[in-house]
């Protein structure tokens, strides 16, 4: 089962590398935010599977943090784009 965990983790990292291209060359800020939101969700899944691979339950909180803060960052960025600071 640990082979499956490591395979999922490495494939998620490859997907993140694909998304980093869009993050680097996105023409508008909204493109970059979409790519960043997807990257943090994929990173949360990669961290979860790495925690199951290494059998450490400490890393699970990192995944929870990543998934909740991807939501927060997308919301805050879109609010900033729409009406500026404040």
């Amino acid at each position: 089962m640990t082979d499956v965990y490591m395979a999922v983790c490495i494939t998620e990292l490859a997907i993140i590398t694909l998304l980093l291209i869009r993050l680097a060359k996105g023409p508008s800020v909204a493109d970059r935010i979409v790519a960043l939101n997807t990257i943090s969700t994929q990173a949360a899944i990669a961290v979860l599977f790495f925690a199951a691979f290494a059998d450490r339950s400490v890393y699970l909180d990192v995944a929870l943090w990543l998934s909740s803060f991807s939501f927060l960052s997308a919301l805050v960025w879109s609010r900033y784009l729409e009406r500026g600071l404040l």
Partner: protein
Amino acid sequence: MTIAVIVLCAIGLFFSLSGAVGILRMPDVYTRIQCSSKVITMGALPLLVALAIAEGPVTEFAGRALFVGFFTLVLSPAATHALARSSYKTGVPMWKGSVLDEPRQLEQQRKDQQP
């Protein structure tokens, strides 16, 4: 058990990979947002369910995985909607082959009715 886990992981990875390619290749912001929602619903949830099945349903891995799945399932449509709204309001251009722009049509109708 192992076969179910592998099948769920394959489904999730396939959808995540195709969604990432879609985000990379789609022509404008709104279609990219649609691809990112595909990554989250069909890509992340089977992977989290696979982790919950593989570790057993009452371990802390499974609980945390299902919690992350609930988070992404509930919160990411809200974030996506806010992002699409703000990018429309700040005037990010649509793809030139797009055929329908309903808010602009409604505004045009309202202008025509008021003399």
